[in-house]
């Protein structure tokens, strides 16, 4: 059991390190947008979703209504539905209580690690515990430190921190592109998301684009299989 926790925490190391610049960036920007260090701490503890936190801080700063901030958060984070569904088949042996605790720690980054891990290993509560607690701690700590120093810094966009989130997505995405079909799904999702975002401007773009692109991936499998079948005939 201990070794499973340790394995999970070890798998979290790149995430913990990756969260530092992004967490600092969030803390700095959020504190300049008027959030207190306490706000930042509780947001990172309970919401724990990078992009939604960036968006929420910006919306709070521009004086958006609570209901529109919460709705936006819901839409931006709806993608976790798909990640959670993707982990579900590997969680059959765990109790509902453990499942509900583990699911709290699902983020783009932890899922990029765990989604890959469960393909080849048995999912244990310890592994997820180690992975999620270590990652979450790093997120909380980085954002709070950013928040403490943020109000003392000026013109942070100059520092390049606003690019941290994009760089993180790149760092997570690229190693997962292992074959042509993955590349196809990646291109379709990116283009669809861009088109939806620029024409509708809403926040549905990520989830709609992901659903369509994954469907294209499955359809491409069928098409490939048919082709190879007709070759063998």
């Amino acid at each position, binding site marked *: 059991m201990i070794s499973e926790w340790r394995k999970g925490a070890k798998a979290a190391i790149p995430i913990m*390190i990756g969260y530092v610049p992004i967490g600092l960036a969030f803390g700095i920007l959020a504190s300049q947008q008027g959030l207190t260090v306490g706000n930042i701490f509780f947001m990172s503890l309970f919401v724990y979703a990078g992009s939604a936190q960036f968006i929420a801080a910006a919306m709070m700063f521009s004086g958006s209504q609570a209901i529109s901030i919460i709705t936006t958060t819901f839409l931006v984070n709806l993608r*976790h*539905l798909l990640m959670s569904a993707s982990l579900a088949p590997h969680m059959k042996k765990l109790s509902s209580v453990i499942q509900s605790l583990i*699911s709290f720690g699902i983020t783009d980054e932890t899922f990029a690690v765990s989604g890959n891990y469960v393909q080849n290993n048995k999912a244990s509560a310890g592994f997820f515990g180690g992975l999620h607690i270590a990652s979450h701690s790093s997120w909380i700590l980085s954002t709070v430190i950013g928040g403490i120093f943020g109000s003392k810094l000026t013109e942070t966009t100059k*520092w*390049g921190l606003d690019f941290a989130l994009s760089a993180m997505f790149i*760092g997570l995405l690229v190693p997962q592109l292992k074959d042509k079909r993955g590349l196809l799904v990646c291109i379709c*999702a990116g283009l669809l998301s861009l088109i939806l975002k620029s024409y509708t401007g809403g926040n549905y*773009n*990520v989830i709609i684009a992901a659903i369509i692109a994954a469907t294209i991936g499955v359809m491409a499998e069928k098409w490939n299989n048919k082709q190879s079948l007709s070759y063998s005939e």
Partner: protein
Amino acid sequence: MEQQAILIILGMSIVTYIPRALPIIVLSKFKLPDWFLRWLKYIPVAILSALLVPEVVIFEDSVNFSLDNKNLLAAIPSLLVAYKTKNLFVTVSVGIMSMLILNLLLPNY
């Protein structure tokens, strides 16, 4: 402001937690069809790409494929480093440094 902030954070926490927990708790009780499991395998790549592309291509509120778009310029070294090293920390650091350098070189944009 303070009370408002607490309300917002509470609301955000609830609407974020439900989609995280519900599928794991419900779907793990059933045997899912094979096509659905294969579909789910494409989800990580699809989500990350759908998050990334608008973030990089949309610059100052409009789609911008020109060299004025610093996000796009900073993405190039980040992509190369991600491909070469497959290391998250190195990629994030290179991304931030690229943006820092771009901001120093092109301060007017």
